């Protein structure tokens, strides 16, 4: 079994030796930053002419007014990041996986060929990320729905924990764990698609099998960096309090910091580390 320490050592040494691996993440950061700025300006003219009816229809008129619009900003930012990751992250993830494989095999890093491979495998990777996004969106509604049904039938507690705690902290913790588990289950689909040339369905099945085989290391590699995002989650949940106590634009600052943390730190750590784990595990099983 490959040690977590060795995987992180490979991750950091690859970034040090070949900083070019970081370029896709920087590109994604720029895209997401542009989207975030558009979200920030969406209640104002002239962008309001396009976004105004959409925001009004889905969330209500009040979110087109200052400073209430900042209460919706974390949600809109999250939505825009999901869309950006779906369309651009699909390509970037493939490029990173190819570049990591090139480094692992001690080959000369070829950015252009990595991008070419990324484009070739784009639709399969896009399908995987779309599936994970849809599964997460629906699954994260499941627990609140079930809890609501349970508590509205007259129960005050579940497992000795009161309803208020379940419906606030319980849901957040559940969604956090669910997100990590879903990510881990599907994370190896991308290397299987990009490096082993597998199709969408087969890559997913092989990913599940591999995740089951290297369950604990995968979970650790995905969870440790994700924990860094918890302060951002807490700040987002207290948006209204922060608007009143500090100033409304603070929410936008939090969104920018969250974006930077996610795309420039958490995402690279998870993607590189799990790709290295994939390659090490495959090397070990091939040598056996």
């Amino acid at each position, binding site marked *: 079994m490959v040690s977590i320490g060795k995987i992180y050592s490979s991750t950091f040494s690859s970034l040090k030796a070949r900083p070019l691996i970081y370029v896709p993440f920087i590109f994604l950061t720029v895209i997401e930053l542009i989207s975030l*700025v*558009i979200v920030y*300006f969406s*209640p*104002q*003219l*002239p*962008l*309001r002419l396009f976004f105004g009816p959409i925001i009004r229809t889905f969330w209500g008129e009040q979110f*087109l*007014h*200052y*400073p209430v619009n900042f209460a919706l900003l974390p949600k809109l930012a999250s939505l825009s990041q999901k869309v950006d990751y779906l369309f651009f992250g699909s390509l970037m993830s493939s490029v990173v996986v190819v570049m990591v494989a090139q480094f692992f095999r001690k080959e000369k890093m070829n950015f252009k060929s990595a991008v070419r491979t990324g484009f070739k495998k784009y639709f399969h990777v896009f399908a995987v990320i779309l599936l994970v996004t849809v599964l997460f969106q629906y699954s994260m509604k499941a627990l609140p729905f079930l809890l609501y049904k349970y508590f509205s039938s*007259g129960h005050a507690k579940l497992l000795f924990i009161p309803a208020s705690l379940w419906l606030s902290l319980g849901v957040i913790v559940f969604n956090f764990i669910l997100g990590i588990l879903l990510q881990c289950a599907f994370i190896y689909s991308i290397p299987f698609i990009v490096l082993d040339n597998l199709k969408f369905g087969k890559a997913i099945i092989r990913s599940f099998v591999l995740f089951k085989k290297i369950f604990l290391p995968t979970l650790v590699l995905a969870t440790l960096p994700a924990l860094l995002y918890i302060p951002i989650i807490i700040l987002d949940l207290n948006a209204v309090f922060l608007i009143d106590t500090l100033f*409304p634009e603070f929410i936008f600052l939090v969104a920018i910091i969250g974006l930077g943390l996610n795309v420039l730190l958490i995402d690279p750590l998870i993607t590189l580390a799990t790709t290295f784990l994939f390659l090490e595990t495959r090397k070990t099983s091939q040598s056996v």
Partner: protein
Amino acid sequence: MKKIFSQKLLLILFALMICSGCANDQYAIEKEYWWLKKQANDIFKNPFSTPPRQVEVAVAKFNNFIRRHPTSPMALDAEFTIALIYQAKEQYAAAREQLNAVLNKHSKSDQVCAETMFLIGNTYEVEDKWPLALEKYKAIIQKYPMTQRGFSMPMYIPAYYKSKFQPEKMVAAYQEAIDHYRNIAHRFTNSPIGYQAYNLVADCYIGMNDWTNAISTYNTMLFKYKGKLPLDTLQMTMAMIYYREMQDTANAKIKLQELLKEYPHSRFASQAKKFLKELEKK
């Protein structure tokens, strides 16, 4: 050609983003006003330690806002806020002068006039000049009875006497309120205003702990508005009064059973079932 097109598109997008926030639209006005209100809130938090200069600057900024955006809905709020700043600093005469100016400016709007007169009365009340405040409050009831403020004003006066531990004046004020609301209820029987007026009559009796008359009023409402308006809240309130105030468990049970029969999907249904179970155990 494609390159030029995509470059032009990026340029337009960039220009749109740069221009966003430059227009003096409603959002920009809201943003400006929010920051102004923050300054006012700083004064309200600690009026006595706020230096006079800071108050002057805040008032000047509010006046400037009103001058630049006279038709904005926030302009009226700004005018009221200036008066409230003066009141917080115990400059009651200045506050009343400001409010009288608002009264003259918005004389055609009953809602604004009622609200302004209430604030004028409030300055007298805070100054401990209750007779002058009462004069203003009664003027609101007389001149603007159907405005939001005017409609609730008859309940404000007995609440004041209650807070000052003056039970006789409180009862007298409640009686006046009951007569006022009964009059409105008779004039507008077939409308929600009539229902609301009857509700306030019942609230007056509850304020005087006159449970029998409160129940009688609710029964009148049940008779007049059955089938026209949802009455589950009424039935729940009656059940509570029967049980808690009149110790009449039998009638409380009847009311709960009626509620569950007529409004099985009411938001009070689960509470009523629970309450009924408890009553049936006794």
